[in-house]
Every structure is written in structure tokens, then in C-alpha cells.
């Protein structure tokens, strides 16, 4: 019904709806749209990199532009593609999985999205305003503090704004999962995706502030003449490395853990078995998250921290392999004895296991300090983290999208195109990155604009570049699939996969209040419990009554826009006086909106019982 209404509405009305929405399902759409957009950009940057490295001493792009490409590829993929796509999936599924009508802070949820979006926009504006950041996504000082032009300024401001959005999102999900669970949904009955989203949110909460401070220090050094990283005034550039990796390593787990949750849900759904070792899976996830904070210096083995620090961090790093191994074996055991149904969603999950295992293996290898003296900052490491982040995160996002697409949009993604996407991407991926392990060991450092002729690196790089085009093809097919599905796709039933968790107990797509009556949860995999007991539907936990829902608001958009404007003010205030107008104007806009929000009561609205009854007919 809702789709029919949507189609009749004018474009302007739909746009306004999305600009002001606080509905987690629409915010999920926005996150997926924004993340998808930046994923394409990051992918194009990757292609430029691979074309440049296709042959020795190539001059497809200049050295300076190449550094901009590699910086923006990394930054975009991590902060502007992977993070929002994950947050998109979390928004789409978590409230439904716990039987909630919305998130705890719908307004902040929207604010988080718009901050991310405007942060991403400001970062990408740099391409048109004198050059993108060029100091690598790690932006090591003093290269980043001395980088000429405004590129790194855009990096600092863009990430600061986007990072604030992510932090808000993290707090929102923490409170949502703690306070908004349906009756009977105890912690140890939560689906693994909800669990991993919860733990990820804890990581976001404690990791992102380190980045915030790092970026502030970098910003102060670049824009306000401070001396944190200026050696001549007593500064110390290693502080940046520490702050960055205190954030950066948990960030890796922020990127991977939610997808572990997706895979857990998928394996159990498509094998028709409950997750093997549920408790162990939950605690393994917690352990990974906890250890994730103890290992940041393994990115700094060559910095010269000394053998004691290096050894401690090496052992802590190796320890992470244990809970990760538990997870891999538990997944296999989940499928063991089941009846495995393979479709495009499951295909990604199955492709993930060998791929991610390779990434994990090389992870243990790079944890061995002295071996890492060879791997560090070479293509071996490039291969390693792509096996983890693409093989884990991106595969997981694809899996999650195929899995929840019917729930989100009411249509099932085309299976044939799904298979095509998977196979081209999967093969392309291994072609691109497997060989890079060896390239690294054969003497190719990462972030190299050219490699010299006769270095023995030609064949490997050529293979790698060819693989990249396979991956690009796969992604194009996926986007074609989206369009195809929107136009001609098969309509989805409420529960297309014979699901086990609560999201499959409501309509596809759900009404904006998710559940007319909040369901009563009677065990792990609540819907499955009802199915095995022959009922097949959830028992309501409350009588039909008025539903309280939050009001939409345009303020999050305006607040983020204010910061966006102020961001330009910060970047240009050293050069032009007019930039102060932007700076103060933007900040005034932000604070004005905050005051409005704070002082104007917003009590939400009620959907009366009568209306709900009418809809039922």
C-alpha cells in the first residue's frame, strides 16, 4: 500500500520527506544511497590506481595526482563507503530485529546521517578546489602538516564532521539496543547482527574520540600555528601515529564485526539451523572488540618503539586470532548437518569464509614483528587488509543487501544478476589481491606511483590490474540489478527466506511504525520458535493501542549544512577575510538550530488506534 502512495507523490514531496525524515528505515535508504555513491567514487579512484600501475613507469597520472587518488581511495572507502553502508544495514535491520518501533534517538539518527553526508561532500569538494588530500588516509605528520595547498584541510574538516555523525550513530544504537527491546527479547536472545551492532557501537564510542582529538591537533597545526607535530618547536609526530591507530585499529573491527553478525544470521537462516555455539559467538565478538583496543601499535612495529613494546603488541595481536578462529569454526559447524540453500545472498557468505580466512592468516603473519619488518608498508599489507576488508566487510555488505533488500524495498534482487555479480567480483578480487602478497615481498612498497622497469614486478601488477576490472564489472552489474529490480523485480512476500528473526515477522517493507503490536519474544530466533510450534506468527505483547511516533525535522539537515559552511570558513580563513563570514555564519546556524531544538518542545505524535484498525482491513 505504501509503495502505491509513494508512487503518486510528487518528487518534491518525496525529497522533502527524506530531508526531514527521522524514520530509521528511510535513514537506512539514505545511508545506502550516500554510501553507494561514495563507493562508486572510491572504486573509480581504485581503477585509476590500477591503471597507473598496469605497466612499469607508467604516466597515466602524475605523481601528485596519484597520491591524491590513493589518499582519497582509502579515506572514501573506509569513512564514506564502508561505514555508512554498515550504518545503513544497522538502521534497516536492528530496530526490526529487536521488535522496536524506532531507534532511541530518531532526531540524532537523522543528524548522524546528514553529518556524514556533508562531511563526505566537503572532503570531495577538494577535487574541484585545488586538489584533494595527498598524505595517505593515515595522514602521517609531518607530511600532512606540511602538505601544500588545502587538500589535507579538507581531509581534516571532512572527517571531523563525518566522524561526529558516526559517533552519534554509535550512541544511538547502544541506547536503542539496551532500552528498546521488545518484551522477552533478553540479551542472550538477540540475533547476532544485533549483538555485533551493539559491540560495534561500543567500539565507535571509544575509538572515534581518539580520531577527533588527532584531527583537532592536525587542524590546529595546519590552521592555527600550533606545534604538536612541529619538531622544531618540540613537537612529536609519533603522537599522531598513536592517536590515529588507537582509533584506527578498533575501526578495523568496527568495519568487520557487524558483518560477522550478518554472516551469522545468514548461515543459520539458509542452513535452517540455529547458530552453533551462540554464547561462544557473542563472547568471541566481545573478546575481539576488547583486544581490538590493545593492539594499535602493531601498525607501528617499524616506528622504533623498542623490542618490549613490539613483543607485547605482537602477542596481543596474535591472541585475536583465537576468537576469530572460534567464529569461523562455529559458522562451519552451523552449516554442518543443515540443509544449505544457496542463493546470491548466501553465495557472498560462502565466498567470505575462504577469503576471510586468508586475510586472517596473513593477519597472524604480519603480527610476527620481525617478519613484519618485511611486510610493513608493502603490497603484502595492502593484500592483507583488502582480504579482510573486502573479503569481510564488502562481501558482508553485499550479503546483507541481498538478504534484507526485500525487507527494505519490498522486492527481491534478481538472482541471475546476483550470481553474475558475485562470480565476477569474487574472481576479480582474488586476481587483484592474491598476487599482491608476493609483489610486496618481491620489493614493492605500497603507495608507489611507479615501479621501475626490470624490477620483476610487471606481470604481477598486470594481473592485479586486470582483476580490478573484473571487480568493477561486478559492481556495475550490481547497480544494474538495483535498477532492474526497482522496475521489474519480483515482489517480495513478508518472509521470503523462511527467516528466523523478528524482522521477517512484519511486512515487506514495514509500515513506518514497524509493528502494529509489539511482539512477545519467547526464545532465540523468535519467529522460528513460533514456526516450530506451528503458529508461524508472533504473539503480540500488548493490546492494539495508540502508537507514539517521533516527528520529522529539518533541523538535522540545517545543522549539518551549518557545519558544512563553517568548514569552508575554517579551511579558507587563513587566505581570505570573507571566510570568517562563512565560519561564524555557519557556526551561528549550527548553534541556532541546536538552541531551537533544545528550546522548542517536540513531543512527537500519536497514530490513533482507529486508524490502525482501518489499515488492517
Amino acid at each position, binding site marked *: 500500500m505504501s509503495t502505491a502512495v509513494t508512487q503518486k507523490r510528487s518528487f518534491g514531496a518525496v525529497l522533502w520527506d527524506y530531508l526531514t525524515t527521522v524514520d530509521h528505515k528511510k535513514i537506512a535508504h539514505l545511508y545506502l544511497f550516500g554510501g553507494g555513491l561514495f563507493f562508486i567514487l572510491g572504486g573509480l579512484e581504485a581503477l585509476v590506481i590500477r591503471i597507473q600501475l598496469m605497466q612499469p613507469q607508467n604516466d597515466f597520472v602524475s605523481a601528485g595526482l596519484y597520491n591524491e587518488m590513493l589518499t582519497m581511495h582509502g579515506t572514501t572507502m573506509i569513512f564514506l563507503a564502508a561505514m555508512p553502508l554498515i550504518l545503513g544495514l544497522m538502521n534497516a535491520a536492528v530496530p526490526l530485529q529487536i521488535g522496536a518501533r524506532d531507534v532511541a534517538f530518531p532526531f540524532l539518527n537523522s543528524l548522524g546521517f546528514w553529518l556524514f553526508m556533508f562531511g563526505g561532500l566537503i572532503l570531495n569538494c577538494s577535487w574541484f578546489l585545488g586538489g584533494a588530500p595527498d598524505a595517505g588516509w593515515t595522514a602521517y605528520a609531518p607530511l600532512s602538516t606540511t602538505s601544500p595547498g588545502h587538500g589535507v584541510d579538507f581531509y581534516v574538516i571532512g572527517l571531523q564532521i563525518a566522524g561526529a555523525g558516526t559517533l552519534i550513530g554509535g550512541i544511538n544504537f547502544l541506547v536503542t539496543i539496551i532500552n528498546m527491546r521488545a518484551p522477552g527479547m533478553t540479551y542472550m536472545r538477540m540475533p547476532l547482527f544485533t549483538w555485533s551492532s551493539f559491540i560495534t557501537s561500543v567500539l565507535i564510542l571509544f575509538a572515534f574520540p581518539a580520531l577527533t582529538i588527532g584531527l583537532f591537533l592536525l587542524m590546529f597545526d595546519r590552521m592555527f600555528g600550533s*606545534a604538536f607535530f612541529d619538531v622544531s*618547536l618540540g613537537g612529536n609526530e609519533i603522537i599522531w601515529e598513536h592517536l590515529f591507530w588507537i582509533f584506527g585499529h578498533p575501526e578495523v573491527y568496527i568495519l568487520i564485526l557487524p558483518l560477522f553478525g550478518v554472516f551469522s544470521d545468514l548461515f543459520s537462516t539458509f542452513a535452517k539451523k540455529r547458530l552453533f555455539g551462540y554464547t561462544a559467538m557473542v563472547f568471541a565478538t566481545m573478546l575481539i572488540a576488547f583486544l581490538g583496543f590493545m593492539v594499535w601499535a602493531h601498525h607501528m612495529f617499524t616506528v622504533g618503539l623498542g623490542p618490549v613494546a613490539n613483543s607485547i603488541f605482537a602477542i596481543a595481536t596474535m591472541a585475536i586470532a583465537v576468537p576469530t578462529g572460534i567464529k569461523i569454526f562455529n559458522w562451519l559447524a552451523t552449516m554442518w548437518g543443515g540443509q544449505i540453500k544457496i542463493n546470491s545472498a548466501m553465495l557472498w557468505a560462502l565466498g567470505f569464509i575462504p577469503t576471510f580466512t586468508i586475510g586472517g592468516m596473513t593477519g597472524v603473519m604480519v603480527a610476527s614483528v620481525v617478519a613484519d619488518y618485511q611486510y610493513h608498508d608493502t603490497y603484502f599489507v595492502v593484500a592483507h587488509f583488502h582480504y579482510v576488508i573486502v573479503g569481510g566487510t564488502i562481501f558482508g555488505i553485499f550479503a546483507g543487501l541481498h538478504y534484507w533488500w526485500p525487507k527494505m524495498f519490498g522486492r527481491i534482487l534478481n538472482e541471475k544478476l546476483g550470481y553474475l555479480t558475485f562470480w565476477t567480483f569474487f574472481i576479480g578480487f582474488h586476481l587483484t589481491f592474491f598476487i599482491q602478497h608476493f609483489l610486496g615481498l618481491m620489493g614493492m612498497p605500497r603507495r608507489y606511483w611507479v615501479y621501475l622497469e626490470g624490477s620483476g614486478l610487471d606481470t604481477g601488477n598486470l594481473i592485479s590490474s586486470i582483476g580490478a576490472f573484473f571487480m568493477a564489472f561486478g559492481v556495475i552489474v550490481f547497480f544494474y540489478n538495483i535498477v532492474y529490480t526497482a522496475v521489474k523485480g519480483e515482489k517480495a512476500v513478508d518472509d521470503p527466506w523462511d527467516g528466523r528473526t523478528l524482522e521477517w515477522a512484519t511486512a515487506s517493507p514495514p509500515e513506518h511504525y514497524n509493528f502494529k503490536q509489539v511482539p512477545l519474544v519467547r526464545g532465540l530466533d523468535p519467529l522460528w520458535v513460533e514456526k516450530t510450534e506451528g503458529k508461524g506468527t508472533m504473539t503480540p505483547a500488548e493490546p492494539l493501542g495508540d502508537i507514539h511516533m517521533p516527528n520529522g525535522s529539518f533541523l538535522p539537515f540545517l545543522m549539518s549544512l551549518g557545519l558544512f559552511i563553517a568548514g569552508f570558513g575554517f579551511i579558507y580563513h587563513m587566505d581570505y577575510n570573507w571566510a570568517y563570514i562563512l565560519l561564524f555564519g555557519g557556526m551561528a546556524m549550527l548553534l541556532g538550530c541546536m538552541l531551537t531544538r533544545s528550546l522548542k518542545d517536540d513531543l512527537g505524535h500519536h497514530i490513533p488506534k482507529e486508524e490502525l484498525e482501518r489499515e488492517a482491513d
Partner: protein
Amino acid sequence: MSDHSLNPEVMPNEPEKATLEGKNKFLGFWFFLGGETVLFACLFGTYIALRNSAAGGPTENELFGLELVFLMTILLLTSSLTSVYAVYHMKNNNFKKMQLWLGITALLGFGFLACELYEFTHYIHEYGFTFRSSAFGSAFYALVGFHGGHVTFGLTWLIALMIRNAKRGLNLYNAPKFYTFSLYWHFIDVVWVFIFTVVYLMGKVG
């Protein structure tokens, strides 16, 4: 939730947690403070790493005078106590007394801020010690200034709250707001205790 349910005849014992929104706000704010803790921890770490990097400029021992800092500590600690009184009166549904104690809290906060501004101008004019003079200077102003910024923000927040609710009194909608403010204010206070120890005492003694 109708207006009526937010203004019950008898205020519950913990008005800040009586509604789901209130509970969410309460919990969310605690998490926010958790993030803030990391924020300050990073600044403390940076400061400790750079406190001896004066690059020939004035050092901690030359700059800091404990008298003023002691006064500031007393002002802020007392303001924390007065905000406790305010919350106490909130729980007793005594709006006027709550406003009064919040007012005193604000005054003490302004006193603290004035001292801090005086301290900074003193360093700048007497010693030429600025944000740009050395890595130590940068780290000092970043840490202490960041805290000062938090105080300023807190005061703005407090005054906005007090004015907005001056006429309508306490209800279940604004009780969580007052309560989260008091949490924030205690947090700032705790951070100051650490600044006092790490920056001033260790700078003078260590």
C-alpha cells in the same frame, strides 16, 4: 504522550527516568560522557608527552602559580556541589529552589571561567606564552582550553534551560534535561580535578 502525562499530579521519585525518552536520554548521556572521557584521555596523553617540550620558552614551573588554580578548583568543586542541591530539589519537585541552586552553580561557573581567562591573558602578556610558542604551549592550551570550552558550553546550556523553563516549572519532559546537565557538570568537574593534578601539581612539583 499527551501533555497531561508529562505533568502528573504527583511527580515520581526519579522524574528524569519516568518516561522512555527520559531513560534514553539518561543512558545516552552516560555513553556520551564515556566518549568524552576518551577525548580528554587523548588530550591528557598528548599533554604528558609534550609537557617538557618547551622549546626554550617558559616551562611549567616558571608559569604556574598554584594560588589562582586553587581558587579555580574551589569554585568549580563548589559549583558541582550546588548542582547536586539543585537535583535534590528537582527530585523533591521544588522548582524554585532548583532554579536558585542552578543560578548559584552558573555564577560559580562564570567565576571559574573569569579566572581562567585571567590566567591565560596573564601567561600571554607576562610570559609571551601562547598556543604557538612551543609544543608545550599548544598542548597546554589545547587541554585546558578544551576544558574551558566545555565549561562555556555548559553555562550556555544551563542558562538556556533555566530561561526556557522559568515559567512552566518542572515536568517529565524537562526533568531529564536538567538531570543530564547536572551529569555533564559533574563530568567537567572531574576532568578539572585531573587537570589540576596532572597539569598544575605535577608541573609545579614533578
